[in-house]
């Protein structure tokens, strides 16, 4: 009984390491396709449309409402201490350092990452990837690399849009609706948000999340069991692993960037 459970733990640990190793080799294979992709930028442009442009609506609306809620809650607390003029700082720092990169990445993994896993998984299930191999076309370079690169560069742009919309919507709620002084809202924000420390670090986070989300999405899709149940499981795993990876990495990155 005990021996059995020890054996199970050993087996699971080994399979986790095997999967991590497999994913790392797969990432190298993806990156190996970048050189040939530079000669055909149109492949990336198509994918920027499906990963980035089509995610725009959910990013815009989420940014809008997150900014509004943040402003409302921040105002209620700040006004008690008479420092509601700092609302802009509160909202902008929260958005730039934390909420923008994390929420945009979570939304992106749900919208674009899951779609990508399902697309690649279905291409595998319908033998499209195998047929490419037989046409002497490497499916990783032709299908996976353009999607990976497009996703990695789309997320920081979407994050920037999320931040901008969030901050502006918080201004609308804070200043126009709740009456916070417009001058102090913007001037305090300008004085306290540092380009290098806050903005650049926020975008570094976003870039890292983009790599992780895309890596998980394409890996799960490419290695899905080629059946409808297999693709469905892979899509679920893609979203769950992405969310956990984003939140776990966020803690590590935050402690490095803004911790002690």
């Amino acid at each position, binding site marked *: 009984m005990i021996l059995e459970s020890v054996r199970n733990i050993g087996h699971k640990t080994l399979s986790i390491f095997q999967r991590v190793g497999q994913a790392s080799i797969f990432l190298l294979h993806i990156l190996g396709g970048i050189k040939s992709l530079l000669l055909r930028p149109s492949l990336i442009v198509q994918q920027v449309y499906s990963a980035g442009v089509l995610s725009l609506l959910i990013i815009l609306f989420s940014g809008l409402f997150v900014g509004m809620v943040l402003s409302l809650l921040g105002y209620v607390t700040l006004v008690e201490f008479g420092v509601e003029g700092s609302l802009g700082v509160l909202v902008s720092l929260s958005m730039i350092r934390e909420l923008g990169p994390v929420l945009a990445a979570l939304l992106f993994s749900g919208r674009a990452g899951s779609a990508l896993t399902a697309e690649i998984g279905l291409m595998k299930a319908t033998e499209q990837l*195998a*047929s490419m191999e*037989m*046409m002497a076309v490497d499916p990783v370079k*032709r299908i996976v690399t353009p999607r990976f690169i497009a996703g990695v560069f789309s997320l920081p742009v979407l994050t920037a849009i999320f931040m901008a919309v969030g901050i502006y919507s918080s201004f609308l709620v804070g200043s126009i609706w709740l009456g916070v002084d417009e001058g102090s809202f913007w001037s305090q924000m300008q004085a306290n948000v540092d380009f290098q420390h806050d903005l650049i670090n926020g975008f570094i986070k976003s870039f890292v999340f983009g790599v992780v989300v895309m890596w998980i999405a394409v890996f799960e899709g490419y290695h899905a069991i080629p059946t409808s149940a297999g693709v469905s499981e892979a899509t679920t795993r893609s979203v769950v692993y992405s969310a956990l990876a984003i939140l776990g990495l966020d803690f590590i990155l935050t402690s490095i960037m803004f911790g002690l």
Partner: protein
Amino acid sequence: MPESIVTISDLQFSRGEREIFSAVNLVIPKGKVTAIMGPSGTGKTTLLRLIGGQLVPDRGDVVVEGKSIPALSNKELYISRKRMGMLFQSGALLTDLNVFENIAFPIREHYDFPETMIRDLVFMKLEIVGLRGAYKLMPSELSGGMARRVALARAIILDPVLMMYDEPFTGLDPITLGTIVSIIKELNQALGMSSVVVSHDVSEVLSIADYVHILSEGVVAASGTPEELRESDSEWVRQFLQGLPDGPVPFHYPASDYHQALKGGSL
């Protein structure tokens, strides 16, 4: 026997615990239509994948045009595949491209031809399969038979020397089936390619094959020309070719005694 294009020797291949091939030896002659037949689950499609280098054997060798496929580097394998064509059972058309672009796909990926040349090459192949008028359609707008014909046009766009067909007759209406049968034969003669047809549709295969290998339980159970196999005195070959429900290959999956099971015995 004429010169061979594929030579398989002492091939062993397993999927997990299950052994698919224990020791397969067969030769596919150049310029002929060779059929690989056998009951479902005998690894006919797996054999095509081994020839195409998509799977690696556990033991033995697969030699195509004098090159050992399992020993090739990835780059060399891709070069070899440019000389092979494969028609998948599902067609495997790229769903985001229309018929024209699906067929042009291999040319665009490998060569920098002018657009007018690509157009002519694609229309020539579409004319062979009778679908020139359907060049604008998307794969979702095609019937099963049409999709397979488009896939066939795509598979021969680079004029392969070795063409592999994976169950080309399955699920087709009689008219489309007849069309595919005659196209396979004509392509073999007109383009001088060597064809391997994997199928268990006996009458269609025997009507076009020059040579037949029948696989069973991990080995080549019988080989010969269609005439030789028809006259074979092996009960197994007769059962397979005539489609008899029972014989050396039992109708029932191994189980306990039926009457005992109904009386409450073990199943």
